[in-house]
């Protein structure tokens, strides 16, 4: 499985930056000042029919739009299967139902928010829209959700005759998660300019959101973005050494030496405590490697590594790096060939995703 190439033949992403047009690459940068980064959305009517649009929650609109952008980009209208990933799913809708339920003493409730609140609502909606009867799954393991979905898609392609899987993430910057997680200082106490996230060496990050879909295929498509070489997850490493050992195993499995990595996409969250192990690890192993970061653009959320994957795929395809993401002065090779995304979520879920230029 580790020697198979998995091609990312199409993608679509809606995020707190203007990312929904695949012909552009971060054309304008938006700064946020209240620690919450929310999506810049296209005109949904270009992607979703008006009858359907009216019935959908905000998150479902964003997710379905990202999926449609992706299928249009790849030219695949009917994938063999759909796999989605989320941390908190439709907590916003769930909370609306719970609020009503508590306020009305469990009487006279309407089912809309309940129905739209199940974690697999987006994968079901995408299947319904694409008339896809194939494999369908949804992963909800915090900072592992998106990585598990990628891994599942790779296994599906490896083990069967299937050709293409649609794999997507979605997470919403919802109020209740913000309030509840603020109890454990998951978000910064001081309000900052989001673009200066990495200048604030304090506890907490910024709340972000987004939805990104990718088509994963065994064969290279016309508009292929890059090759997904591998993905691995490490649960609660107790030290940067432990993480380093896991990383070495990952490289060995894919028969790659660390010197071959041209670019590190570092998923630091800007939280001085949660970033400790990952920053120690990257400082030790990647001090000579050009490094970029992204959570000052999209904020922190469970499936933020999917923004990192979009960034890596875009850099590999376009062979350019927007200055807003650059973080160290190491000089870049003339051709960027191998990219590593290293991510952590809440200091518990660590992952590595390896990408290669086609």
């Amino acid at each position, binding site marked *: 499985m580790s020697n198979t190439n998995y091609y990312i033949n199409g993608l679509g992403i809606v995020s707190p930056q203007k990312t929904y047009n695949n012909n552009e690459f971060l054309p304008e940068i938006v700064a946020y000042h209240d620690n919450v980064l929310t999506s810049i959305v296209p005109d949904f009517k270009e992607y979703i029919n008006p009858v359907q649009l009216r019935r959908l929650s905000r998150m479902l609109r964003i997710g379905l739009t990202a999926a449609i952008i992706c299928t249009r980009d790849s030219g695949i209208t009917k994938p063999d299967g759909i796999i989605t990933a989320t941390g908190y799913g439709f907590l916003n809708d769930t909370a609306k139902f719970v609020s009503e339920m508590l306020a009305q003493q*469990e009487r006279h409730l309407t089912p809309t928010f*309940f129905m739209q609140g199940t974690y697999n609502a987006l994968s*079901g909606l995408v299947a319904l829209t694409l008339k896809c009867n194939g494999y369908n799954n949804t992963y*909800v*393991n915090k900072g592992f959700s998106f990585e598990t979905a990628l891994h599942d898609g790779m296994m599906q392609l490896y*083990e069967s005759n299937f050709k293409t899987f649609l794999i997507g993430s979605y997470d919403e910057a919802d109020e209740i998660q913000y309030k509840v997680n603020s109890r454990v200082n998951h978000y910064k106490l001081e309000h900052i300019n989001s673009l200066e996230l990495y200048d604030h060496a304090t506890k907490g990050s910024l709340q972000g959101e987004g939805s990104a879909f990718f088509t994963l295929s065994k064969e290279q498509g016309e508009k292929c973005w890059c090759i997904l070489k591998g993905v691995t997850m490490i649960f609660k490493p107790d030290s940067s050494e432990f993480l380093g050992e896991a990383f070495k195993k990952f490289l060995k499995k894919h028969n790659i030496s660390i010197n071959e990595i041209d670019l590190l996409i570092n998923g630091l969250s800007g939280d001085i405590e949660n970033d400790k192990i990952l920053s120690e690890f990257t400082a030790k192993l990647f001090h000579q490697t050009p490094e970029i970061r992204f959570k000052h653009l999209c904020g922190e959320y469970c499936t933020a590594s999917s923004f990192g994957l979009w960034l890596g795929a875009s850099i590999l395809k376009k062979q350019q790096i927007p200055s807003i993401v650059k973080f160290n002065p190491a000089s870049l090779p003339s051709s960027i060939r191998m990219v590593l995304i290293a991510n952590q979520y809440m200091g518990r879920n660590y992952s590595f995703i390896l990408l290669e230029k086609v």
Partner: protein
Amino acid sequence: MSRRIFITGYGIITSIGKNAAENYQSLVDRKCGFGTLEILNTVHKDDLPACEIKLSDQQLCDLCGVSIKQGYTRTVLLGIIAAKEAMHMAGLSPSEMYATGLLSATTTGGIRELERHYYELQDPNEHGDFEVFTDTANPGEHTERMAEEFGIKKYVGTVSTACSSSANAIILGARLITSGELDTVICGGAEALSKFTINGFNSLMILDRDHCKPFDIKRKGLNLGEGAAYLVLESEDTIQRSGKKPIAELKGFGNTNDAFHQTASSPDGAGAFLAMKMALDTASIHPSAVSYINTHGTATENNDLSEGLAIQRLFGNQVPPFSSTKPYTGHTLAAAGSIEAVYSIMALSQQVIFPNLNFNEQMEELSITPEKELIENAKLKYVLSNSFGFGGNVSSLLLASL
């Protein structure tokens, strides 16, 4: 499937028993968990009976050997109890635990605790015992808590595909073994009753206020339940090395999407047909070899019709005996797939078919009838276990005796 997958242990807790032996005895004795809600505090405790585990959170903590102050949600507690039994049955040693994966499924995770402390949790000025439940509503949290309790690091994953969730956790587990990623994996699901689910299903008007009647013409809806069940899956080479005696084999599986409606099944059960067919195809088994189907059989008007028609279409005039065990346990949502996989394994190892309780009158649209009585010495070789959910998710597992 290239690498054979064996079940070496299972564990279960439901409203009809806190371990495998109690569950089996209740199934044989036609003893159901249906009744008035006593543990969950809801205004519907008398008018919407359900299949509740009559143990308080404190009693569950005592069973788990954890302190209530640790902030384990009821879902986590149920999960720990069932997974511990599965690990014990499989005789997993501490060194094996390190190389084991844990895949768990849930639809609500810790919503029960979120709804209980809803206002306090959102008010930064409030402090107290509830704070241990700060981030426990997240569905991934329950798996991570369980993994930490058991010292599992190798692979931790959470599945949520509504009522087919734990069947999909089992399927992912099997595929992680097939791909060579893992040799041993604990997979299943856990679900605690909550006001959220009771009111949600009530607002959809698919709850029966009386005891549910799967496949009966007068069926009026489902009863909710709670519980957890886990299987230990191991590869053929692993059990050859350890010399462990497996209990059953996971022979095939299918996962498809009905792609018909957000919450309803298609009238002809297109997705269900495909999932069952795929389960048989992956095992290269002809439909006529199936000796029993443990159906999803929720007793909603929509599900039983759709599932029944899909069964008729796949099996033609050779439909094997089938039953729904939902009247025993209620619909345990994400946990239903693994709970019924355990019942299917019990059926295989004891060679029995569990009765479909409360069936009285034939559905006009179907020509098939569920088993009403316990059948012993049933000569079962292959058992199919179905799990369907909102969002069109349908999964089917094919289990085989050894």
